């Protein structure tokens, strides 16, 4: 587990400076929502590397920084409330500090809620790495009426305490100075460590004597003993394996007798914290309302809160599409111009027709189509990042929890599902934030029913071709059908397939604060890069393959191509929905990427926007759109589903379920529609 050299994992990112041996390794630790990532982002910016912790689906962010000639390797640990192994994040954070022994740990504390966020510091001080404390969000504290004196806290704690407003770049340089001073031993580092209740001290002493010879290196013995007393599952397993069985039996008897010690130990930490902050913190007078309370009187209200959420979502979508659509149209125009130029150029050097077709239709057509979605996605991610960074997202989760609960989901499922409107891949990946495995699995299975930007683009184009002025009405109805299907399916799966274990809902509502442009910018950038990488690799290959399948054999005559053959084999299914085989082929290619449906229709029909309405009846056109909206997720989403569910069985279940659902939906719409219209 111990890595000898500093691995910053900078593969592929151009601005990443190489970190020599001797660079200070600095780990950022803190509870969720304390602005830890803002500090990290301010220092590392685009030179940061985002990967996963080995074998885990938790983000691992690292980055280099040079402060006055001193090289530092920064590691952003996952946000955790404590260091007991209750969650995978907590295991990662403490394993890192114990095994990788960073030179300095920066404990980031929320200045507006010092008591609660000092709890993690109380735990960090028991580990060997020296700690520098940062009181972040001093501005939020002031806005909430909390006054806090870093220097008084420093005197009480015996470690450097730096006041900071990371979003305004205040306090970062003093923090870096303190890190260097502590690492070099020029700071009189003399931490006061929390104590436990007197009645537990004797028990702890006995435990230490018993386990001391068997605690594996580099675990500190008193810390292991304390964590055993707190009932830490991971360390109990470790010591059961490490100690001889007669010793373990004695240990186990003690732990059994003091089973409820966890509450006393946590309580003692809070008592210690109260003593430390007593002189340093002035609380607001009773009755004085902070900004958060005033905003929340509306935003978490059952009626006003729901209306506010709907209004905010409305603004998000209107903004995204009114600003994004013109840019997208412009890009499409540019793309057509480029295609024309390339085609003319290739014609000019008398290149073979197949080569020209491959480049213009296969490559430029496929990848260019994806590129045109980028502005809409960027805007969408930016508004979501904004809502997240101000602290509003947790309120949205609270307001929607009851609705989500009925589907077996969780208030926290709301955010990932919302992401799905941009792209289903981050939606599925975003389900990580849900602790309950069952609610997480349900979210993964249901996320593909949220229509993504590409799907919406396809139905918008086809809807306009088929239904003219009524198109926007049809598109809204289709979105509603998808969301109702999602709710119905959730209800059904919750009741029948995934019964059992109720999901636990414990969620902090962070204090509102001004968003940080840099944090949001990096959020947008990372999501876009992930999307474009997918477009660059999967979709390029796929569009060339689809083009090839439609080209051979027959040299461009789709009727005689492989794709045509597959389509004709599926004709009986199509007949039930009133759809010719070309449409089925278009649907099949949308498995590669949703936007391919349009590209394929373009390849098969040429100017499909004028041809299609003459080919399909109204019910058949509607059936096509319904199937397209409910159809199996794209290949990238399927891969994400496999990764997050950890099971091919559930992934396959989800895909087959949607396949059946979409076909049944299509057949139903066509048959019923034909009955009403009369063919």
């Amino acid at each position, binding site marked *: 587990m111990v890595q000898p050299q500093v691995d910053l994992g900078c593969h592929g990112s151009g601005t990443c400076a190489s970190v020599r041996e001797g660079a200070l390794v600095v780990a950022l630790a803190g509870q969720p929502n304390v602005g830890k990532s803002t500090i990290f982002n301010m220092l590392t910016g685009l030179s940061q590397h985002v990967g996963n912790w080995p074998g885990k689906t938790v983000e691992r962010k690292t980055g280099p920084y040079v402060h006055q000639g001193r090289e530092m390797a920064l590691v952003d640990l996952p946000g955790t409330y*404590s260091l007991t192994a209750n969650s995978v994040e907590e295991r990662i954070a403490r394993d890192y500090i114990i095994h990788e022994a960073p030179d300095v740990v920066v404990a980031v504390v929320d200045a507006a809620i010092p008591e*609660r966020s000092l709890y993690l510091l109380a735990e960090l001080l028991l580990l060997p790495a020296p700690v520098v404390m940062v009181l972040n969000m001093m501005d939020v504290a002031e806005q909430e009426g909390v006054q806090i004196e870093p220097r008084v806290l420093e005197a009480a704690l015996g470690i450097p305490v730096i006041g900071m407003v990371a979003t305004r770049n205040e306090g970062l340089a003093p923090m870096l100075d303190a890190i260097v001073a502590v690492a070099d031993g020029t700071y009189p580092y003399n931490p006061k460590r929390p104590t436990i209740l007197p009645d537990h001290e004797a028990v702890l002493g006995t435990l230490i004597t018993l386990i001391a010879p068997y605690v594996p290196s580099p675990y500190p013995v008193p810390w292991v003993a304390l964590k055993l007393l*707190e*009932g830490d599952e991971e360390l109990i397993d470790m010591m059961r394996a490490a100690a001889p069985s007669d010793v373990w039996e004695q240990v186990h008897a003690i732990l059994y007798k003091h089973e409820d010690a*966890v509450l006393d130990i*946590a309580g003692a930490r809070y008592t210690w914290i109260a003593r430390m902050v007593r002189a340093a913190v002035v609380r607001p007078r*009773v009755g004085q309302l902070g900004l958060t309370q005033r905003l929340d009187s509306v935003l978490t209200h059952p009626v006003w809160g729901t209306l506010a959420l709907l209004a905010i979502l409305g603004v998000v979508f209107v903004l995204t599409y009114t600003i994004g659509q013109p840019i997208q149209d412009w890009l499409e125009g540019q793309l057509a111009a480029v295609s024309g130029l390339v085609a003319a150029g290739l014609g000019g050097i008398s290149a073979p027709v197949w080569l020209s077709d491959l480049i213009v239709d296969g490559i430029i057509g496929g990848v260019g189509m994806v590129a045109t979605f980028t502005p809409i996605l960027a805007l969408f991610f930016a508004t979501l990042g904004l809502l997240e960074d101000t602290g509003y997202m947790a309120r949205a989760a609270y307001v929607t929890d009851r609705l989500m609960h009925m589907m077996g989901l969780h208030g926290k499922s709301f955010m990932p599902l919302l992401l799905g409107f941009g792209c289903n891949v981050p939606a599925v990946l975003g389900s990580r934030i849900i602790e309950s495995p069952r609610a997480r699995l349900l979210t993964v299975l249901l996320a593909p029913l949220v229509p993504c930007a590409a799907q919406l683009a396809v139905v918008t184009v086809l809807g306009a071709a088929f239904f003219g002025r009524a198109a926007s009405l049809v598109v809204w109805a289709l979105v509603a059908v998808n969301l109702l299907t999602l709710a119905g399916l959730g209800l059904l799966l919750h009741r029948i397939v995934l019964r059992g274990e109720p999901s636990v*809902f414990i969620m902090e*509502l962070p204090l509102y604060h001004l968003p940080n442009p840099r944090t949001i910018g990096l959020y947008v950038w990372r999501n876009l890069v992930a999307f474009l990488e997918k477009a660059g690799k999967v979709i390029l290959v796929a569009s060339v393959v689809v083009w090839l399948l439609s080209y051979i054999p027959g040299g461009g005559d789709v009727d005689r191509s492989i794709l045509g053959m597959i389509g004709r084999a599926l004709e009986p299914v199509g007949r039930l929905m009133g759809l010719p085989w070309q449409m089925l082929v278009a649907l099949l290619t949308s498995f590669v990427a949703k936007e391919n449906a349009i590209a394929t229709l373009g390849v098969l029909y040429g100017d499909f926007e004028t041809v299609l309405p003459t080919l399909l009846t109204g019910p058949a056109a509607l059936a096509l759109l319904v199937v397209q909206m409910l159809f199996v997720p794209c290949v990238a989403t399927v891969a994400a589903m496999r990764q997050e569910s950890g099971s091919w069985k559930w992934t396959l279940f989800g895909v087959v379920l949607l396949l059946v659902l979409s076909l049944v939906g299509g057949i139903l719409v066509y048959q019923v529609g034909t009955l009403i219209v009369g063919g």
Partner: protein
Amino acid sequence: MVPLEQLNPGAVGYIGALEGGHRFISRLAALGFTPGAPVTVVRNYGHGPIIVQVRGAQIALGRGEAGRILVHREDDDGAAAG
């Protein structure tokens, strides 16, 4: 002692006991729900999750979770919390 979910908005309770699995208790203890700690109910509509304030932080709790936190009631007039 009464379950936290039965307190009205504005009411203050002092943590008496937590019922549930070890992991559940450990998570709540870290968030500051330790014996004797004052908890102010901020939102409680009789259905859906409730919001409480503990150790200066606002925490949303499902009804099931709030039902397993037992508190000593201080008074129910709610005037103290604003």
